């Protein structure tokens, strides 16, 4: 039937891929410094270096181990090295990789590379990026490590089905009812800045859940929170200026501080964007459809107040040389108050934030409180280095707090300075310490999902082929009653 024919055509088209516009076959070596500079800026906006540059390594030479719930993915060398990078890529091939997740040799990239977001890059921006990576980056003639995911994800062709289902590669259409700034903001947020890659929850095949855009998701040990315009569950209570400042510095005083991957995004990407672009992004983000969590009656930014239990500790405890179990109050005063102050009010200039009126303690998900205690904060912008040491132990850990210590401390902090009723368990702490939720269930689901869709694909193709053959053969016998 016609429906199946159409389906077959779509499949075939998906497999071949389509070109969009007339992209150059070879680099235009006369590309001016302005275009290269624009490409460099876009590379900052897209934060290519976050994955493609190892700390202390050469720019864009790849080799970063990216932990995913299905295994470790290594970023590739995207310097203009001919042997090991993209030196041999035409602009068309570069565009295909960037926007469709397909390498020059035709193999699929894993969506750890956020091509699902970069899919909306305009041809002009692709050209600028291409010029930058071919002419503005030093070639590094060294290959990166090989990525080996478990079956069936190691068969890159399995990504074809996934892309067919989930890759939306239609270019953005300008929304004439919105300002130029809003449109620019949407282009950056949905594209280069790829916010949804962290902030949008995913379905069981790890695709972004389109109906829950920016409603919050777990990313390794950190939780990327709800940043929709909902006042209680999102950032609807923020002002435009607050959001712009947060993007530029990672700090929204009395509300939130960027750490983990968001801290890196501020440090390596957002702080370099123009005022106009940050303005545009804030304009767009503040209009994202509100998604409300019924558990939230008030925002996560306004819980708690200054208080101190010093009166219970001082003058009673004395000097101890034992290893006896501590109380939460002791752990707070001894480990936290030296910077965050005795009443948890932080410092006057906000360098050390208050612990009350702080999203890490006010969220209905205490994940980021645990992650902050374990991993600390390290975020350098033009304002300076915002630094909190981690307390997980290890070679440079300030202290080696056990899981039980962190349970005591977290519950004390939540009770005194955070959201009532939220508590932390040892299992949660252990999971965050391990780097986030484990993958075995996800791998099983992913395998089941891919197996199911492969079976479905085979069935569809079989039916199409059989029916096509039947139509070609003349009926041997007419039906007779």
């Amino acid at each position: 039937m016609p429906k199946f024919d159409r389906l077959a055509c779509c499949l075939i088209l998906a497999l071949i891929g389509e070109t969009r516009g007339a992209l150059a076959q070879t680099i235009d070596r006369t590309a001016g410094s302005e275009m290269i500079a624009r490409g460099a800026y876009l590379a900052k906006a897209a934060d290519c270096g976050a994955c493609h540059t190892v700390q202390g390594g050469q720019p864009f030479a790849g080799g970063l181990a990216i932990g995913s719930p299905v295994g470790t993915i290594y970023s590739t060398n995207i310097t203009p090295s001919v042997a090991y990078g993209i030196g041999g890529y035409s602009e068309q091939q570069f565009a295909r990789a960037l926007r469709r997740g397909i390498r020059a040799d035709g193999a699929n990239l894993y969506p750890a590379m956020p091509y699902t977001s970069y899919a909306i890059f305009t041809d002009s921006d692709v050209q600028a990026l291409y010029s930058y990576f071919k002419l503005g980056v030093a070639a590094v003639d060294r290959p990166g490590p090989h990525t080996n995911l478990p079956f069936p994800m190691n068969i890159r062709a399995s990504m074809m089905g996934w892309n067919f289902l989930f890759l939306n590669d239609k270019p953005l259409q300008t929304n004439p009812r919105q300002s130029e700034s809003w449109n620019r903001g949407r282009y950056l947020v949905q594209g280069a800045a790829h916010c949804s890659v962290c902030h949008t929850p995913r379905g069981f095949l790890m695709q972004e859940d389109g109906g829950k855009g920016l409603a919050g998701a777990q990313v390794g040990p950190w939780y990327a929170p709800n940043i929709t315009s909902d006042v209680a569950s999102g950032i609807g209570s923020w002002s435009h200026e607050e959001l712009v400042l947060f993007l530029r510095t990672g700090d929204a005083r009395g509300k939130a501080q960027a750490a983990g991957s968001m801290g890196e995004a501020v440090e390596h990407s957002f702080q370099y964007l123009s005022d106009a672009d940050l303005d545009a992004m804030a304009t767009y983000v503040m209009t994202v459809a509100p998604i409300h969590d019924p558990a939230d009656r008030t925002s996560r930014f306004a819980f708690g107040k200054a208080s101190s239990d010093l009166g219970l500790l001082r003058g009673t405890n004395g000097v101890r040389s034992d290893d006896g179990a501590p109380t939460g109050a002791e752990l707070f005063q001894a480990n936290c108050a030296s910077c965050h102050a005795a009443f948890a009010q932080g410092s006057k200039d906000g360098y050390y934030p208050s612990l009350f009126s702080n999203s890490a303690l006010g969220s209905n998900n205490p994940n980021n409180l645990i992650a902050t205690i374990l991993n600390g904060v390290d975020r350098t912008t033009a304002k300076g280095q915002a630094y909190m040491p981690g307390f997980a132990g290890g070679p440079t850990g300030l202290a080696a707090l056990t899981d039980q210590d962190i349970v005591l401390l977290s519950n004390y902090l939540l009770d005194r300075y955070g959201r009532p009723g939220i508590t932390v368990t040892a299992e949660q702490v252990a999971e965050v310490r391990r780097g986030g939720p484990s993958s075995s269930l996800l791998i099983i689901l992913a395998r089941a999902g891919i197996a199911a869709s492969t079976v479905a694909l085979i069935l569809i193709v079989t039916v199409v082929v059989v029916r096509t053959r039947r139509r070609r053969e003349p009926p041997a016998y007419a039906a007779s009653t």
Partner: protein
Amino acid sequence: MANADSADVIVVGTGVIGCLVAEQMLDAGLSVLMLEAGPRVDRWRIVENYRNLPPSLRLSFDAPYPPKPWAPHMESYSDAAAAEYLQLEGPNARAYRQGYVRYAGGATWHWAGICWRLTPDDMRLKSLYGVGRDWDFGYDTLEPYYTRAEYAMGVCGPSDSALQWPPIRSKPYPMGPLPFGPGEQRFTDAAARIGLKNLPSAQARNSGIAYDGRPPCCGNNNCIPVCPIAAKYDAAAALPKIEAKGGRILVNAVVYRVETGQKNAIAAVHYFDPDKLTHRVTGKIFVLACNGIETPKILLLSKDERNPNGLANSSDQVGRNMMDQPKLVAELTLAEPMWTGVGPVQGSSIMQTSQGEFRSRHGGALFRFNNMARSRVGAIAAVRKGLVGKALDTEIRRLSACTAEIAIEHELLPDPNNRLTLSDKKDWLGINKPNIHYDVGDYVRRCASEYSVPIAKSLAAELGATDVQVSTEFTNSDHIMGGMIMGADSTRSVVDLDCRAHDHSNLFLPGGGAMTSSGCGNSTLTMAALALKAADAVMDQVKHS
């Protein structure tokens, strides 16, 4: 590989010296076993201990570190307590009441973090002034090690050579200087008016950035007795790094005997555990880094047939030439608030007064405006006045703001009669306690009467002090030096120029004990430089053996 019984390098002591050596050894691929007499305690427990102290104990910097019975150290909360462990005698016995803790991490737990270098002249007292001893190498030899030590610990200091001491450097400081608090700035201005330069301290304290994964200083002013956030370098912060590199650390292991073997080389060390059971540990190279009192003590305890005077002691210099910087203190009362307590406790010093032709006649001195918050002192004094309620509050504030202290630290010459021996009194494990005879000598007393005290009074006057009380009894600065003195001549020194014992080819004794002259400045950076120099020599020796 290191196990509980042996390793390539045995390091006794987990203070700054032991930890610097251990890390160098591990980086060079050698196995390391560290033995520490005392316990390993979490930083947060020490911070809470400190903050739980009553006001009367707040000036006893060892009070947050209650010693274990098997690893006693001097406790300063009363004269009677202080007389328990260190047996002190002589005209200036009080000035050798040295404060250090026998905990994993050692005395850098509670040090101020100050990292002055010696000057070239400091190392040539005999040639220049006819007193003391010359070092058998010059500043130029030590300079690269000073630099390495500064980068290893994370030392901050000025880039302006006019503010450096001495301004002879091959590399800039790893971090820029910390700013002065208001009291320090007033002191700097007052000193300038009488022709004295108050310099920002070189200090092992993170300034503005998180060096080595430790946060920058946020001005707790808690440095002595403990930095709550490890912005100040202490060796305790080095311990996890050492373990991550494969080093093994045994705590509560009290070394009481070093055993010699073939050719008088060291074969093993013996230690007691808290159950008084003895253990034997072997290795190729042995480093004793227990501090300038504990190391000579162990050497003397280890005397055997071949070494009847104690190990490493054919020169009879082990335990002799004990040095420190004897301290006097000028207590000032001021009409206007001075406000100490903003920033670290020792942010600056006047150093130029340590140098000069007068050194043929009397020693030099440094002057330091003590930036410790005065609330401790003010609280004790106000309570003692019997005040209560609002009157108590007001008086505490007044005393905290309107009093100040200028410390004077004097250089001292090595005198063989300033000597550590083994007391007949024994500790909980049955080990002889250290006995120290100390006389600061006329070289120091002449400095005080003719030079340093008059200058302190001028400084006080320039600050507008309404009252000045200068102490008359010298006290300790806790910079233990000289007991294993270094030299090329084995007849009058214990260690050679790499801190290797002259008598034992595989025994190294880096630290303050090896220093040949005291200088006026805090000794730790020089000790650390000697430790790195010794580490280089160990690696060289192991490579060629």
